[in-house]
C-alpha cells in the first residue's frame, strides 16, 4: 500500500492529539508516523501524518479528520511537490577498533556524532526515511543499542504554503 503524507493544522489545545489518534484507531486507519509541533502562530499546531492506505482510505481519513472541530485545515502533500525529513538518534556499539569505521560511515551519510563514550557512539541523522533506514542498515553490523526516531515532517516546495486563515498560495 502507498504512503500518503497529510499536513494538518490543528488548534494548539490539550486533547487534540488524543482526538486524532482515537479517530485513526476506531476507524481502522493505519498511522505510519505522526509528528506534531507548534507553528509560527502559537495558537496553531501542525501535525504531519503519514498514512498507509489506498486512495479511498486517504480520502476517508481527510474527511473524518475534517469533522473534528479542532482541525483547521488538511492538505495531502504530493511527494514530488514537497520536502520531507525524519530525524533519528542511533546509539551504536563502538570499540577502539570500530570507531573510525563508524565515523567514516557517518561522514558518508552526512550525519553527525552527537555523543561519545568508551564503548558507544550516538549518531544524529536527518533525511528521508530511506536515508535513515540505509544508515541504520550500515550501522547494524556494529550492534545498535538504541534508536530514537521522530515521525516524518514535510513542507511544500516553492511558494505554496498552508495557513490557518484563508490564504492558500503565495
Amino acid at each position: 500500500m502507498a504512503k500518503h503524507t497529510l499536513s494538518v493544522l490543528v488548534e494548539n489545545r490539550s486533547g487534540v492529539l488524543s482526538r486524532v489518534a482515537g479517530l485513526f484507531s476506531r476507524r481502522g486507519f493505519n498511522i505510519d508516523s505522526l509528528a506534531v509541533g507548534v507553528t509560527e502562530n502559537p495558537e496553531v499546531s501542525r501535525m504531519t501524518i503519514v498514512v498507509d492506505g489506498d486512495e479511498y482510505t486517504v480520502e476517508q481519513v481527510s474527511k473524518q479528520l475534517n469533522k473534528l472541530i479542532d482541525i483547521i485545515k488538511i492538505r495531502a502533500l504530493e511527494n514530488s511537490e514537497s520536502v520531507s525529513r525524519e530525524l533519528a538518534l542511533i546509539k551504536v556499539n563502538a570499540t577502539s577498533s570500530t570507531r573510525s569505521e563508524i565515523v567514516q560511515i557517518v561522514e558518508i551519510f552526512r550525519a553527525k556524532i552527537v555523543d561519545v563514550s568508551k564503548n558507544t557512539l550516538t549518531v544524529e541523522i536527518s533525511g528521508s526515511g530511506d536515508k535513515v533506514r540505509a544508515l541504520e542498515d550500515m550501522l547494524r553490523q556494529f550492534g545498535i543499542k538504541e534508536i530514537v526516531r521522530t515521525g516524518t515532517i514535510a513542507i511544500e516546495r516553492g511558494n505554496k504554503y498552508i495557513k490557518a486563515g484563508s490564504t492558500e498560495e503565495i
Partner: protein
Amino acid sequence: MKITGAQALVKALELENVTTIFGYPGAAICPFYDALLDSDINHTLTRNEQGAAHAASGYSRVTGKTGVCVATSGPGATNLITGIATAYSDSIPMVAITGQVSLDLIGRDVFQEADITGATEPFCKHNYLVKNVKDLPRIVKEAFHIASTGRPGPVLIDVPVDIQTDILDFRYPNEVDIKGYKPNYKGHPQQIKKIAEAVSGSQRPVICAGGGVISAKASEIMTRLAEKYQIPVVTTLMGIGSIPVGHPLNLGMLGSHGVYAANYAVHNTDLLIIIGARVGDRALGTAGKIAEKARIIHIDIDPAEIGKNVSTTIPVVGDAGLIVEDLYKSIQNCNTSQWLDSLQQAVKKNKVELTEKSSYVNPKKLIAELSKRLNDDAIVVTEVGQNQIWAANNFIARKPGSFITSGGLGTMGYGLPAGIGAKTGKPDSTVVVIGGDGSFQMSMPEMGTIKQNRLGVKILILNNNRLGMVREIQKNKYKKRYSQVFLDDNPDFVKIAEAYGFKSERISCNSQIDSALDRFLADDNVYLLECSIDPEEETV
C-alpha cells in the same frame, strides 16, 4: 456582571432560549442545580441519566430545538453515554452538561471521577472540559452552535465543580468564530446542474429520503419535487414522515426490514437519489450492487458521508432543503409513467397477510388501527426490536417528526424516555410509545418520571414474552437454537402501571383492539395497554 460559573451556565442556557432540560443531580453538579432554583428553566428529573439524554433527544426531535441534559460526574456522566451515542448516530442536536471533580483533583481517581470527555469523544460532535471559568460563556455559545448547525449532533460540556463556584465577569458572546468549523449549506451549482441533467435523462429515478430530510426541514419541498417530476420515494427508518405515508409516490421503508416495493424500486432504478441518508447497512447494504446498474446521486450536509459506503456518481454537499429547492427549479422534465406503472405492480406484491389467532393480538393490525385513530399531530415513539419494525411499516406517519425511533444505534430503552421528551416538548400532541416487553423493561423506571410530571404518555406494550428480534435472528440464522431470548416470567405490566396510578389493561385478541384503543386514547392521561403477541409473529 460578576456571577458564579454555575450561574453563568444557567444564564447562558437562558440566553440560548432553553426552556426545558432533563437531568439528574449529584455532588459535582450541585452548584448548577442551586443556581437553577433561581431560573425559569423547567427541569425534568428522570430516573436514570440515560433517560435524561433520551428525553432530551425526544424533546429535540419534536421541537427542533437543541435538547439539553445534565448529570453529575462519574457514574452520572457515564450513564449519559448511551443517550449521547444514540443522538450522535441519529444526528440529533443535543448539549450534555456534566459535573466533574474539581480541577486540582482531576487525574487522581477521586470519588465519582470519570474521564467523560475522553469517554464520549467517539460519540460526540465535540466536547469540552472547562478549565477556566472565563471560558464558560464562549464554550456554551460554541456548544449550541456546533450541536445545531451543519450535521447536528451532541456536544458535551464537562464542568469541574470548582469552576461552577468560581466568579467571572459574565458577558455572553453574540457570535462564534471557530476556525475549524464552517459548515457548507449551499450546494455547488455545477453539481446541482449535473444532478438536474441526470434526473431529466432518467427513466427510472427513485428518491431515497433519510433523516437528514427531516432535520433539514426539507420534507415539504422534497415532496413537492417528487410530485412535480413524478419521482417515487422510498424512506429509510429515520426518513419515515419526510413524505406522508399513504402518499401515492411513497413506496415505504427500504432495507432488510423494509417493504417489497421499496426494495424493488431501489434494485431496479437507473438513478438513485439519496437525500440526507448515510447509506447504512440495514437500509442500503447492497448499495454496491445497486451502483453497478444505477447512477447514484448523494446529497448530504456531511462530506464524510459521501463515498463512505457507496461510490457516488454525482455527490453534492450542502443543506438538503436548499439543494432540493434548487433542483426543483432546474430539472427540465422527467418521464416516469412507465416506471410508476411497474412500481404499482410491485406494490401489489407487498406482503399483507394478517394472522388471526384467537389468543393473540396481531401487532400490524393493531398499529394500523391505532394510526387510523390518531390525528396528524400525533407522535409515535418506538423502542427497538420487532416493535420498531412493526411500527415503522404500519404506522401512518403524516408529518415529519411524527415518527421517533433510535435508527442508527438501535438503542433498546430509548422509547419511553424519548416519549417523555416528546410529550414535554409537545404537550398538546398525543404521544404513543410503542415498545416490546424486553425494551420497555430497560427504561421501565421512567414511569416514575411520567407520574411525577403528569405527562399523558400512552404506552403500548407488545408482549410476546421474548426478545423477539434476537429470536428472529436465531431462528433464521442460527438454526432455531434459541439462546437467552425468553422472558416468560415477565412481571404483570398492568399491575405495575396501577402501582404508579396509571390506567391500564391487557388484551389478547384482535376483536378487543377497537374498544381497547378507544379507551387508550379517550383522554390525555397516561394509559398502558399491554397486548399479547404471538412469539412466532415475524417482523416482515
